[in-house]
């Protein structure tokens, strides 16, 4: 039996093609994945991401607990509502999950973790909390639905849909959240566009979704969510990194704080690592489509595509690939597709930000 979000019936009413996504019955698209992608880049779209889990961490010692739990430094967030992207590592320095944590008050942080890893994350956090002797209450919030509204017009349409929300959320900076009554609004997302991620009580989710639709916000499926995040150069857990991957080799070094004196789970392992691989962007020169697990052949040795797809904005295929350290930006490498070697150029990513191509 597949798990359902509170918007399941709403998706079906809107003509969604539903798929099994890691045990969740989720919308893949509502007609055309490419049109949905463009809608987010050019106007506004909404995503049901209620399969992801919000987790509240409460108690006087929350910040202390998170200092040791997360690879990024939670002391970077001091302004109420400010969010931090971080990996949670195991002792070997492998990635248990990547997550966002919002600092609400000194005794309350809210975390959002991936759907497929949620149970594992909770077990890990509880164990770490107990072994570290932290007085922190960890509460999964399955009573909250999560809707992301993304695109250049997303915020304005959200304000139209929810009268009264503008005053409270228009001064939010990127990566900052606030509460509006029972609603939690964060200026975050997974598309490379401006917008909000909104949490509401499960019962209120269909109303919010329909109110947004009335303002012309298009429903967007997981298909376009994947091409949007890939263009934006954002990692996908399970595909771009996992428990066997070092964040330092997965393009996530910028999220790992090895400089401060603070200790955290996985730090010693990361310090001892000799790095061999790096994550790079690939732009397919020949015609075709880059896909996960395709082999990359370079003068410095072989690599592998982690995430690959067709980029609707660039109208060509792009990928995130794990390649040997010697590979340089601007190099041409070969990708094995159906027994043929096709040329791809090594580029800096993100590929697209705020509707604009960053590729020359």
């Amino acid at each position: 039996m597949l798990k359902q979000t509170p918007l399941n019936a709403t998706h079906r009413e809107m003509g969604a093609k539903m798929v099994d996504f890691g045990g969740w019955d989720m919308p893949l698209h509502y007609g055309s994945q490419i049109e949905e992608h463009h809608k987010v880049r050019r106007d506004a779209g909404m995503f049901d991401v209620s399969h992801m889990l919000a987790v509240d961490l409460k108690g006087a010692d929350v910040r202390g607990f998170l200092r040791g739990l997360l690879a990024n430094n939670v002391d970077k967030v001091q302004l109420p509502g400010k969010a931090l992207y971080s990996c949670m590592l195991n002792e070997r320095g492998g990635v248990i999950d990547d997550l966002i944590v919002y600092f609400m008050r000194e005794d309350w942080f809210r975390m959002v973790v991936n759907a497929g890893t949620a149970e594992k994350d909770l077990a890990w956090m509880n164990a770490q909390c107990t072994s570290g002797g932290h007085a922190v209450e960890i509460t999964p919030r399955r009573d909250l639905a999560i809707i992301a509204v993304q695109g250049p017009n997303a915020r304005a349409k959200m304000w139209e849909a929810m009268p009264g929300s503008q005053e409270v959320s228009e001064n939010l900076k990127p990566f900052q959240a606030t509460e509006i009554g029972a609603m939690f609004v964060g200026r975050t997302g997974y598309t490379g566009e401006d917008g909000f991620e909104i949490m509401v009580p499960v019962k209120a989710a269909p109303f919010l979704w329909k109110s947004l639709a009335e303002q012309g916000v298009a429903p967007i499926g997981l298909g376009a969510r994947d091409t949007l995040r890939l263009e934006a150069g954002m990692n996908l857990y399970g595909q771009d990194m996992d428990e066997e991957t070092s964040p330092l080799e997965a393009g996530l070094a910028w999220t790992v704080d090895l400089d401060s004196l603070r200790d955290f789970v996985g730090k010693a392992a990361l310090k001892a690592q000799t790095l061999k691989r790096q994550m790079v962007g690939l732009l397919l020169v020949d015609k075709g489509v880059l896909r996960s697990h395709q082999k990359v052949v370079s003068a410095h040795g072989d690599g592998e595509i982690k995430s690959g797809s067709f980029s609707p904005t660039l109208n060509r295929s792009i990928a995130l690939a794990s390649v040997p350290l010697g590979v340089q930006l601007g190099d041409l490498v070969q990708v094995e597709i159906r027994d043929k070697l096709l040329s791809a150029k090594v580029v800096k990513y993100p590929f697209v930000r705020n509707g604009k191509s960053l590729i020359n």
Partner: protein
Amino acid sequence: MMTIPSDLKYTKSHEWVKQEADGSVTVGITHHAQDLLGDMVFVENPTAGRHLAASEECAVVESVKAASDVYAPIAGTVTASNEAVESSPEAINQDAYAAWMFKMKPDNAADLNGLLDAGAYQKLVESEAH
């Protein structure tokens, strides 16, 4: 049913086959196949002159979601390849039966009798839906 034209033949691997007056056949993928794959972004057809065995992998269609092989419905020689559909793969989504992929001259015209008719293909699609 509109998405399964009655004048065409079909394969179990979701190609449609049209018998032309000059004895050649035209091949594409069905509406059902494009619906499963979603937005098409890449098509690679066999080149004219290539001889194909029945059920041989001879073309590729790729959607944003996935790559899928296209198989020769019967044995024969490719006589034409549709470059328009290679440069505009989305034509397959717009009208799968107008967006043909290649034409071939059958080795043996009687081989066409072994393909599915519209009714049999309809049953196949329905059985796959469950």
